[in-house]
């Protein structure tokens, strides 16, 4: 299955920020939108990092205040995918390397973002679909 299949039903909207943005604003946006991450875009509008709830928890554990910018806390660089990526390969990579968010770039522009939950959901539906098709063939109805 290609990433494009997952993207098609996700919609192109991505919550983004920049490295210069104040951390307090970023954290407020995570809470207000009930999301796990903001993609950090560079001056060309391309992903250069990610600010996720994990980064926030790390800062809290270290006793750091949120006085600085997104750039102070974000994880960078970030793995970026494309519409032609194989979902199976990407899932294995995300699991092995412990990251949950993958921004998708197409034609030099941010085209969307998928989470590990999106990929698992898509694979599950594909498996359910295959079972249904095989059952129909075996049972004749």
């Amino acid at each position, binding site marked *: 299955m290609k990433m494009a299949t997952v993207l098609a039903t996700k919609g192109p909207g991505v919550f983004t920020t920049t490295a210069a943005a104040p951390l307090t604003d970023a954290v407020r946006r995570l809470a207000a939108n009930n999301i796990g991450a903001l993609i950090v875009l560079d001056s060309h509008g391309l992903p250069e990092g990610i600010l996720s709830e994990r980064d926030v928890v790390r800062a809290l554990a270290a006793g750091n205040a949120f006085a600085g910018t997104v750039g102070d806390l974000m994880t960078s660089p970030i793995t970026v995918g494309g519409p032609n*990526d194989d979902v*199976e390969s990407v899932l294995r990579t995300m699991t092995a390397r412990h990251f949950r968010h993958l921004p998708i770039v197409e034609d030099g522009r941010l085209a969307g973002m998928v989470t590990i939950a999106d990929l698992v959901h898509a694979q599950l539906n594909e498996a359910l*679909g295959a079972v249904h098709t095989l059952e129909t063939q075996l049972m004749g109805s």
Partner: protein
Amino acid sequence: MAASRPPAHPLRVAIVGAGPAAFFAAESLLRQETVPVEVDMFDRLPTPYGLVRHGVAPDHQRIKAVTRSFAQVAEHPHFRFFGNVEFGRDITLDDLRTHFHQVLFATGAQTDRRMGIPGEDLRGSHPATAFVAWYNGHPDFRDHVFDLSQEHVVVVGVGNVALDVARILCLSPAELRATDIPAYAVDALSNSRVREVHLLGRRGPAQAAFTNPELKELGGLADADVVLRPDEADLDPLSAAALQQSGDRALARRVELLRDYACRPPTGKPRRLVFRFLVAPVELLDDGFGAVAGVRVVRNRLVQADTGTLSAEPTGDFETIEAGLVFRSVGYRGVPLPGVPFHDRWGVILNRVGRVLDQSTDDPIPGEYVSGWIKRGPSGVVGTNKPDSVETVAAMFEDAALGLTFQPAEPARDAIPTLLCRRNVEYFTFDDWLRLDALECAAGAAAGCPRVKFTSVSDMRAALQSSEAQSAAG
């Protein structure tokens, strides 16, 4: 749009399309007992079932068994089918807004993806989708002509559709006659001079999209040997490592099946079905008269991206494969619908979990939904549309409960037949289809095959009129 009171019952839903996604959605809508729903299904063809009728190969009858459950859905008293009604021409989005609370677009992917290489439009170069529709008796394709006097054929792609095309080209006349393939196609294929069919895969055997049953059945063809170079059957180190890591047994079996084919010596059958991996077409060559003479391909190697995907990278090695007939089988593609936002690059109606999105605001458009291939792109098998449609219908019920629907001025049930009659649209009902189905199966029983399909709308109309006259007389 401000939420208002839920619409007065029943919930009137229009479904555009009548393939698996449409029927799975109708089933989800009608098989619950909480909300009364009325479903009107529209299709531009007089016959329902979409690609199950016109896409699934004629020798794969068991896959078509899913239509029995669709016929059961159609028996529901609140289900109606209007065949031979084209969205955009006979009924518009404005009509649907006037007469329904919600519309679900399940129009699939009606056209093909192009390769984007020079020579693609030479005579003798065709989309596989057209060939599939032709040998399945689709009324819009029955008059297509394919030059089956050519000995060498190239099929670009290694998905199940590519395998279907190659297999149909290699079936013996006896094997063909046992299927529901129309007589005109049996004649053309029985007289074909095709000797060699090359299937080209851009990546390696482990990345090919075909599935094991389809691969295995090629070994049983009466008239064709499957040929594969041993070096092209072997996995490169990256694919071998990925296979081992994944523990994917179906993939391991696929690789083993291909290795078996590579080791099998040819038995001298009249045709050869040749798999080529790690090659991509760069140009279709002109014979000097505007027809295809061959395919220039580049050999690929696999490289691993940061995401883990193994993708194809061209080497500097080229090769020419002689062929006078080329089928591109690199995917189906959706077609835009009038008045509905369409993502041209991806060939889908942009949506979030089945709710159609306004492309400028990224917000859902109340009352508009998608399921199936027009929603997620042309991937998966028949059954994959079931969880897809269930998901969309859940969103439809959520929104209906909040009153986020069209506000139809004339939701009465008889408004649609009245409108169609006023516009002189000669629609076919589901009962009409059941009669045509019975006639096709009866003709098939007489001929020793599953059915003899009607392949034109006028033939269907004539058959219905004649059978009506017979019933009236008898």
